[in-house]
């Protein structure tokens, strides 16, 4: 090669410290979760709809003061079975009450019950499941406890509890939590077992990290996404449980409104006045589906593999 040509080149300086530098902007887990979540317009629309429905269900009954036992128009034939229209958005029912008020009062109780039950099931199930997955000793007897509890027929348990405790919100919450938590725990146990023996957990063990710290720092952060998926299924599930139990007469009783109660009350008028049945069912469907969609999308966004 020509010696003159080599003069055209210059040695580039090499800075070892500079080569260690990471140029990418700082990564923050939760910021990335929200960014991924809000990127999808459809998800945002469903989330807004969901927030609106839940807020409306919580506020509207306070204004209307609806109760199935209060029936001021029961002797006024002109007020009964009105079609949906101006003045009566969802029409009126067999006792002359506004269906609109009845549906939202019902939705309010159903939402409250399912949220409380989900919270209890998760708060009990996740810590127990995490320990259960970690400890081989605990697994031996917990699996027997699980076999016993999971074999109790749910309907039988619901009937017995409603006879013993009487109908009402308290008994309904107890019915939907006293065995349900073990399914959450079992689910978490399996998830923990999958990642328990990964190398980074061995590394923590070699550094002397205690089990509790390992669950909080090493295991649960990896499970955020699967736990969110579970919650997004659990809330609509419990709403339908509530509807089912109230429909069977094992739920809140006739003095309290709930979606199940409302649907069961209106079922008898399905032939003549189908809107009485279909309106509360549609509200139930919209709440369940939007909860499910938002939960699923949140779970997806919580998975860091989607953050790139």
């Amino acid at each position, binding site marked *: 090669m020509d010696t003159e040509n080599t003069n055209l080149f210059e040695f580039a300086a090499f800075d070892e410290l500079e080569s260690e530098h990471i140029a990418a902007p700082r990564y923050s887990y939760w910021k990335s979760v929200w960014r991924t979540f809000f990127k999808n317009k459809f998800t945002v629309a469903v989330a807004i709809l969901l927030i609106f429905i839940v807020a409306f269900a919580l506020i509207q009954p306070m204004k209307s003061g609806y109760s199935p036992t209060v029936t001021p128009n029961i002797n006024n034939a002109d007020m009964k079975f009105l079609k949906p229209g101006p003045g009566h958005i969802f029409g009126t029912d067999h006792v002359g009450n506004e269906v609109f008020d009845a549906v939202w009062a019902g939705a309010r109780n159903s939402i409250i019950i399912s949220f409380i039950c989900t919270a209890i099931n998760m708060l009990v199930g996740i810590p127990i499941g995490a320990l259960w997955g970690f400890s081989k000793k605990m697994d031996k007897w917990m699996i027997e406890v699980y076999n016993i509890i999971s074999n109790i027929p749910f309907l039988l348990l619901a009937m017995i509890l409603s006879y013993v405790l009487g109908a009402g919100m308290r008994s309904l919450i107890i019915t939907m939590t006293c065995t349900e938590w073990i399914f959450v725990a079992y689910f978490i146990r399996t998830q923990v077992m999958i990642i328990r023996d990964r190398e980074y957990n061995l*590394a923590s063990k070699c550094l002397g990290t205690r089990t509790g710290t390992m669950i909080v720092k090493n295991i649960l*952060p990896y499970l955020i996404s699967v736990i969110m998926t579970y919650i997004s299924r659990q809330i609509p599930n419990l709403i339908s449980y509530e509807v089912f139990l109230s429909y069977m007469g094992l739920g809140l009783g006739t003095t309290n409104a709930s979606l199940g109660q409302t649907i069961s009350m209106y079922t008898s008028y399905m032939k003549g006045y189908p809107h009485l049945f279909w309106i509360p069912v549609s509200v139930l469907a919209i709440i369940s589906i939007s909860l499910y969609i938002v939960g699923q999308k949140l779970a997806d966004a919580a998975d860091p593999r989607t953050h790139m």
Partner: protein
Amino acid sequence: MSNEQREVILSVKHVDITFDKFKAVKDANFDIYKGETFALVGESGSGKTTIGRAIMRINPCSAGEILFEGKRISGKISKEEDRNVVRNIQMIFQDPAASLNERATIEYCVSEGLYNFHLYKDEEDRIAKVDHALESVGLLPEHKSRYPHEFSGGQRQRVGIARAMIMDPKFIVADEPISALDVSIRAQVLNLMNKLKAEKNLTYLFIAHDLSVVRFIADRIAVIHHGEIVEIADSETLFKFPVHPYTISLLSAVPMPDPVVERTRRAIVYDPSVLDQSGEKREMREIRPGHFVYCTNREYGDYEDKMLQMEREMA
């Protein structure tokens, strides 16, 4: 220096490790001296990682015992001793991508040991220690707030080394620390390990399958095959005078960066049928000072002949 004068830091005595009915390690025997790099070499599945993990007390021994500074560390030990062992014996893992917690910052990963033993006066002191540990492995303090997935393989492995070094250990089990790394950065990590060893007066148990790397880093080498340690010697001796047929076949497989040699190289396939099949129990015998081979009485005679022949050829 002759081996008798040197201080033994870790000794493995007649250790068996079984998983259900499968014997992963049979009758393992070796001493590791303070300040040396002791390599454990064998093919995959030979039980080398299992021995490393037994020393870390992840795998329990089914027979025999492991002593650290003269005290037994295998089996049940008191809580105090357990903490002492954790502080003094640390591990560097094979796969840097799998051995760091992906959901924690580098700061937490490196501080983990400090938190567990409360090895710092206050927050400021902890941060200073983390910064120092990161700098000692060639990383920057600004990396603290980053997550493991933002780093390259070599950087991650250095985070793993920093995390072990911050505990100020005496003994390090390095389980194939470079086999998951890019060839271009292997030397960087090995040099770093050697630098830290000199600075902190460390002892390494270096687990590897790559003999060319082992020759570069190890003072003594143990060859393990199917859970049995077959030969132990100084690395130069082992490369010059291998006597066990398995060691010979392993050495014959080492590639040389020389096309002429490579063209004529014949890999010797290990044939266990040449061993003594009488069923006599084998034991570690010292064929030359510091050179041990696992054999029966008859095999010992054969190896002695082979040794004498090799020594004649060398002379």
